[in-house]
């Protein structure tokens, strides 16, 4: 069974098809990239998979369970987590608190122990803080462990979202343009982070414009154009596909 099965998925906004009759599968443990020009429907697809949008037609199954109509917060409990192209950082909190929110499902979040600051819940919270600091190290945010989110640069915030998503201990992680706005060195660091994540057995779906990153780390690539599937396969196959080259890569090479 595939980790994620997308079948005949469509989404329209006022008559415009953002995603049209799209089907594909994501295998467990793979790094699966989705590429396509701006407006190809990549972010819409992410929003459909993570329950933020409801599909106009078709369905998405995660671990065999249909996700239609399931709230994003429930999907997170199923093991689905993501980052955002346009950041969804909690700017009213410190960096490490952002990551700790990611661990929400795995901490003691009962009301009364929290209110009364019971020793057990305080101890568990301290442990959570340590783990989150480690996660920040893991994505290369060591210097920001004591920072406020509002004082961090853009590239660091992108990684902060990755750390937050990892804190949720997902089975499937969706990364929406993690390298956008990063310089070449930072992008290679993100490469490494994603590889390490996948090595831990977390399935990754990646939307990215940085072709070097996509070609370098993906097991499987899906190319979209105008909400439809253009091509699918391993990096070599997709790179060789004339339609992909015409629609997208051609502009870059």
């Amino acid at each position, binding site marked *: 069974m595939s980790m994620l099965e997308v079948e005949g998925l469509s989404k329209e906004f006022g008559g415009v098809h953002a995603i049209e009759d799209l089907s594909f599968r994501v295998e467990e443990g793979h790094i699966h990239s989705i590429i396509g020009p701006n407006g190809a429907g990549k972010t819409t697809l992410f929003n459909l998979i993570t329950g933020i949008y409801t599909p106009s037609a078709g369905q998405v199954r995660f671990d065999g369970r249909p996700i239609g109509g399931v709230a994003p917060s429930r999907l997170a409990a199923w093991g689905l987590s993501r980052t955002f192209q346009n950041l969804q950082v*909690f700017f009213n909190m410190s960096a490490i608190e952002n990551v*700790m*929110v990611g661990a929400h499902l795995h901490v003691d979040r009962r009301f009364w122990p929290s209110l009364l600051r019971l020793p057990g819940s305080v101890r568990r919270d301290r442990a959570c803080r340590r783990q989150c600091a480690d996660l920040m190290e893991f994505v290369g945010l060591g210097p920001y462990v004591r920072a406020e989110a509002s004082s961090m640069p853009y590239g660091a915030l992108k990684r902060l979202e990755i750390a937050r998503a990892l804190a949720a201990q997902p089975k499937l992680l969706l990364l929406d343009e993690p390298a956008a706005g990063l310089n070449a060195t930072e992008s290679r660091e993100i490469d490494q982070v994603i590889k390490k994540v996948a090595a831990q057995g977390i399935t990754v779906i990646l939307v990215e414009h940085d072709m070097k990153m996509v070609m370098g780390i993906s097991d499987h690539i899906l190319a979209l154009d105008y909400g439809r599937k253009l091509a699918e396969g391993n990096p070599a196959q997709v790179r060789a596909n004339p339609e992909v080259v015409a629609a997208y890569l051609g502009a870059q090479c």
Partner: protein
Amino acid sequence: MAKLMNARSGGLALLALVMAVSPLGFTNAYYYDVAVGALFNAMICVGLNLLIGYGGQISLGHGAFFALGAYASAIGTSRWGLPPLAALGGGAVLVGLLAFVLARPILRLKGHYLAMATLGIGMIIYIVLKTEAQWTGGPDGMGVDPLALGGFVLATDRHWYWLAAMLLLVVVWLALNLVESPVGRALRAGHGAQIGAEVVGVDTSHYKVLMFVVSAVVASMVGSLFAHKNGFITPDIAGFHRSIELVTMVVLGGMASIYGSVLGAVLLTLLPQVLAGFDDYEAMIFGAIMMGTMIFLPKGLLPSLITQIRKRAGGRS
């Protein structure tokens, strides 16, 4: 200084110290009376700030929850002969239930729509309290017996002051606990980026509802205490002005700042006393101070103050 403000134990100790020392300047019972009012408001505002400042949900109706608590105690003790604590607890439970039932549909609303809905609920409760005279005494209000705990009767404003001071410490401590806990983080996250919180498993509306109930229950309990202390209540305590006053204290003191709420509540309770000498000009000056503070210190008094102190400290080092 700034460190002391932030550290929980330091802040609590400072608050306790200020409240312990203040009475040295109280030359007569009137001072105690005003001070108790300030402490009561501070407790409500700390609760309300959890909803407004940390949760990002405005309420223009919390005066009504305060009033319901007051009337629950008044009616419970004088009409039904309940012990004061039972009436206080019963009122809190009822208000909590009411808030819970209302919260789901209301908190789906955003911004000004939420302001309107909470305002409407407050107004409806106010009108009910004013109209159902057989229960509430109508616009003329009703008397309430003094608070008797066991055999001890809180007879003087001095007694009330020490009780209110202790309770405020407890409320502040609980609020700080909550804010720094997973519950508080989930609440703040929902305010900071709702979808970002949802995708890591935070049921944001659950936490908004929870804080709506918590803040309403705090207001209700303080309302009960107020009824006993004042000895007399009228429906005006449920009015629009009361609700606005509470929100103003929270915003003026500093949103998402527990100690800011204490500061805002104390200052705005004292201000009319200070301005009383200006007679006809009182309202004008009060309004001008409100506007001026929010224009020049949009983050509120305490957060702006702390930023200033940090800047000074940073400049020196």
